């Protein structure tokens, strides 16, 4: 391991990650985090499930369910699309690079 501390999402106090399926991560471009990017979570049929705006540090977070999902990101500096799978409850990290 490279020794970098594991990033974990900031969660509201009452959230039980034994039960919630949390898909989270950072949106970046050329190595820099991108705040105010629009991140969409699409279900396995490509249908919209939710959308969030990245934080000042480029972070996003969803409470999903086990299954296959697609993340679709829009920002005025670029866009990205990425598939992510959650096998069960817990944390699933997906780092996204804009191009």
């Amino acid at each position, binding site marked *: 391991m490279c020794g970098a501390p594991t990033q974990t999402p900031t969660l*509201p106090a*009452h*959230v*039980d990650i034994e*039960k*919630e*399926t949390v*898909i989270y991560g950072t949106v970046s471009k050329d190595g820099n985090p991108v705040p*105010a990017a*629009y991140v*969409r*979570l699409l*279900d396995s*049929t490509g*249908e*919209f*499930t*939710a*959308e*969030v*705006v990245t934080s000042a540090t480029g972070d996003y*977070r*969803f*409470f*999903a*369910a086990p299954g296959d999902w697609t993340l*679709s990101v*829009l*920002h*005025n500096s670029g866009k990205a699309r990425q598939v992510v799978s959650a096998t069960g409850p817990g944390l699933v990290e997906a780092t996204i690079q804009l191009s």
Partner: protein
Amino acid sequence: MSRSEVLVSADWAEQNLNTPGIVLVEVDEDTSAYDGGHIAGAVKLDWKKDLQDPVIRDFVSKDQFEALLSAKGIGNDDTVVLYGGNNNWFAAYAYWYFKLYGHENIKLLDGGRKKWELDGRELSKDEVNRPTTSYHAKEQDTSIRAFRDEVVAAIGNKNLLDIRSPDEYAGKLLAPAHLPQEQSQRAGHIPGAVNVPWSKAANEDGTFKSDDELRELYSQLDLSKDSIAYCRIGERSSHSWFALHELLGVDNIKNYDGSWTEYGSLVGVPIEKSV
């Protein structure tokens, strides 16, 4: 009602930032968005603090709505242009809410904050203060607001339009996925409800689809029958209500603001589930 009377473009809004008689109002779920930068001159409405009674689950009273708009400096003759985050969900909710209390001149900014930001248009952090007014509201127009007994009675009789995501409709999720899923109510949908997700009425930049595309989208509903739209708390269904009632001119559709958080908690009502 035609599109140009109820929906304005970002260009139009930008050209009318200083036009007397036009008031931009930002409505958000997360009001820190406004504080971090808003369209110049726009006043802020907090959909929860400003528009919900703090104790019982209902809207603020007519008197409280009058006091709110007066304090915000919105007059009866002003044209109110609403916009917000979450693809205009809460702005559409406020639109429906202003209609409920009888405001005449009201429009939605197509695409809301999202389109504005994606276009790279300017946001301001300046504090906005408008001179107070003495606003007069009308009694609630309940021809556009549905209540639970009416919804239960509508099963098998009226169109029930569930505009949540397919996973919420099926009962796999209990809330849109930016919120925690552990909720007290049961999962599923009202029996017979047709699922037309709100997102199908919008483009990815948050603007509404064309009238032709919307007509095609809702063609599976028999719109000669009365309809009731619902979601989880009534905000996304306001967006679909806007598409149907305001853009397509469907007069006989109501929004059920109790929505799934009420229906899914009622004792003994039927629920359909597909997972």
